[in-house]
């Protein structure tokens, strides 16, 4: 069964001069216990998707969808009050900045208790017991001491752990992590990511990992969705995206990841896509990437559709099929040639 099943989700921003499209007819399926990575530039609408799933869109936003199911129930058919209660029992969210996602005026214990009692755990001792378990589950050692501290007395990494513990207090089926490691040190980043991936196994939660860091997604996710200007550009298994990116935008994102070690050549410049992401009030005609695309051609003035590529996934590009065939023949040639070189054989 699908944990998350969205058909034609559109989010518009209401303005005086009419609605502006932030997310345009997005469809997405995510199975139980999957880790889905969502990547894209700032302003591509990836955080808006998270907000839409959590029901946290501001009143200026208008959300439409043909079907929007979370753990088997269609959210669009619920009245708002029921919807919020249902979502809070099924999904939790972790934000980018752990310092600001915890209330500075209350102790960790108070904030955990609040959530626990909102989810039906009222006895004091039971709540304390569960709080300690939760903190333990996110790898905090001195649980008793931490419970009585305020967020400003903890480090960023510890705060993010606490935020995850609070998110787990609802016993969610889906955990949305909106750039959970962006504001943390690199070593702490790895710890927090490991924690999230482990929770995916131990607590049996599906994870949506939103980030703009491709390197981070490559090791941890099952599938990756690439967002650009409110459109899903490519949605495929992580392995396929990394080895055989079919959309020019995915390729340019991958090319702009800095490489370390032997692949790094001194003095070489990192690839950067020219231009900027289009503003929502002036989307380009046809393909949203069109004006910036390195391989754009005449037919790109017509908006491309999200097409399925066999053995790959879904791609929104006119040339996806062509590209796939070209890559296949290329890789056939390559494998033939590399078989002779036994050392590099494992790579391809």
């Amino acid at each position, binding site marked *: 069964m699908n944990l998350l099943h969205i058909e034609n989700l559109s989010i518009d921003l209401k303005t005086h001069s009419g609605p502006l499209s932030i997310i345009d007819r997005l469809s997405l399926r995510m199975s139980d216990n999957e880790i889905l990575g969502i990547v894209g530039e700032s302003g591509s609408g990836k955080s808006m998707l998270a907000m839409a799933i959590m029901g946290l869109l501001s009143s200026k936003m208008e959300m439409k969808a043909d079907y929007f199911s979370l753990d088997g129930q269609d959210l669009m058919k619920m009245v708002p009050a029921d919807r919020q*209660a249902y979502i809070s029992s099924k999904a939790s969210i972790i*934000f980018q900045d752990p310092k600001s996602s915890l209330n*500075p005026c209350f102790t960790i214990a108070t904030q955990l208790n609040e*959530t626990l009692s*909102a989810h039906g755990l009222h006895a004091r001792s039971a709540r304390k017991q569960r709080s300690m378990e939760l903190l333990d589950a996110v790898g905090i050692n001195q649980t008793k001491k931490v419970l009585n501290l305020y967020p*400003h007395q903890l480090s960023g990494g510890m705060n993010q752990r606490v935020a995850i513990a609070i998110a787990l207090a609802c016993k969610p089926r889906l955990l949305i992590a909106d750039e959970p490691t962006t504001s943390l040190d690199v070593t702490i980043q790895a710890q927090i990511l490991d924690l999230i991936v482990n929770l995916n196994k131990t607590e049996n939660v599906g994870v949506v990992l939103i980030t703009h860091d491709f390197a981070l997604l490559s090791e941890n996710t099952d599938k990756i969705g690439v967002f650009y200007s409110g459109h899903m550009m490519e949605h495929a298994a992580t392995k396929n995206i990394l080895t055989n990116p079919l959309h020019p935008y995915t390729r340019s994102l991958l090319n702009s990841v800095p490489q370390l070690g032997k692949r790094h050549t001194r003095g070489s410049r990192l690839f950067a896509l020219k231009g900027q992401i289009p503003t929502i009030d002036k989307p380009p005609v046809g393909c949203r990437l069109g004006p910036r695309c390195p391989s754009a051609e005449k037919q790109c003035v017509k908006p491309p559709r999200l097409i399925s590529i066999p053995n790959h996934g879904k791609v929104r590009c006119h040339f996806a099929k062509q590209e796939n065939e070209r890559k296949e023949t290329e890789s056939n040639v390559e494998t033939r040639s590399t078989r002779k070189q036994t050392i590099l054989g494992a790579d391809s």
Partner: protein
Amino acid sequence: MLTNISRLLINVFSSFFVLTLFTFGLTHFFPDGSSFIYDPSLSTSLFPDVSLTMHQQELGLLEAYINYVTHILSGNFGFSSVRGTPIMDDFVIYFPATIELAAAALLIALVVGLPLGIYAAQHKDKWQDKLIMSGSLIGYSMPIFWWAMLLVLFFSIILGITPVASRIGFEFDIEPITGFMLLDTLLSEKHYALDAFKSALHHLILPAFVLGTVPLAVIARSTRSTMTDVLNADYIRSAKSRGISASKILWKYALRNASIPLLTAMGLQISILLTGSLITETIFSWPGIGKWLLEAVYRRDFAVIHGGILAIASFIIIIHLVLDIFRSFVDPKLRRKQ
């Protein structure tokens, strides 16, 4: 917590030190009636004369200052240079009236301004918000004397609901016990005590509302801006996503956070209320500190002006101490780390 309070107390003493240096400088280099408090043996004489001035200048500067501060701490603020009575006696009579008025004004400002600000924040950028914000801008920029006249004209003269001036109806005779009219009427054992209380309340409403108008506007506006910030914060959004009820989020989570900058804004308003009640007190002939000081200015009673300034400033220092302690209860970041 204790170290925190002692830190605040050091703050208070240093501000008091600077304050006394300033006022001491004023009296020492421009001598007047308040110089009586240099030497208690001379304070029996009514008016300052040349020999007194000579005498105090013979004292060393440091000795004179220490003398001065000990007298202030023992409640001797000098003597009126016109009437010769102790300034403290006047102060005890007039100051409670001002506090009563200021407290009522602050209460009105809080009770009306806070919910208005919260309501505006909840309906940000909608017509409710715009109405409240433009209303508060008008309230903020209203000249107090004109606004008071309008209210008197409307409520007292046309409608005849409220009295025009003074603290209580002339038919009541209330013994001053605390100096606060509302308390005194309740404490009074006379048979008309309850009627007197009503009358005092009646007299208080209009001046309190006039004095509270500007703080009301300021509180509404700052509540609105801090509240919109807080309501957009990640911790409020995540609390919402965790299924915590909207009213709990607003009154427990958001208001606690918003009250930290609000307390600072309120501290400033309290100082303004205490010192700036002069116009309101004059219009409503309210026998308070502002009116007392204004009359002292007319009489060129420098001793009273000097003593009044010193007393008001000391009181404001104490109020800020209380607010600081209160703030450290609300904001855990201000508490010292263990």
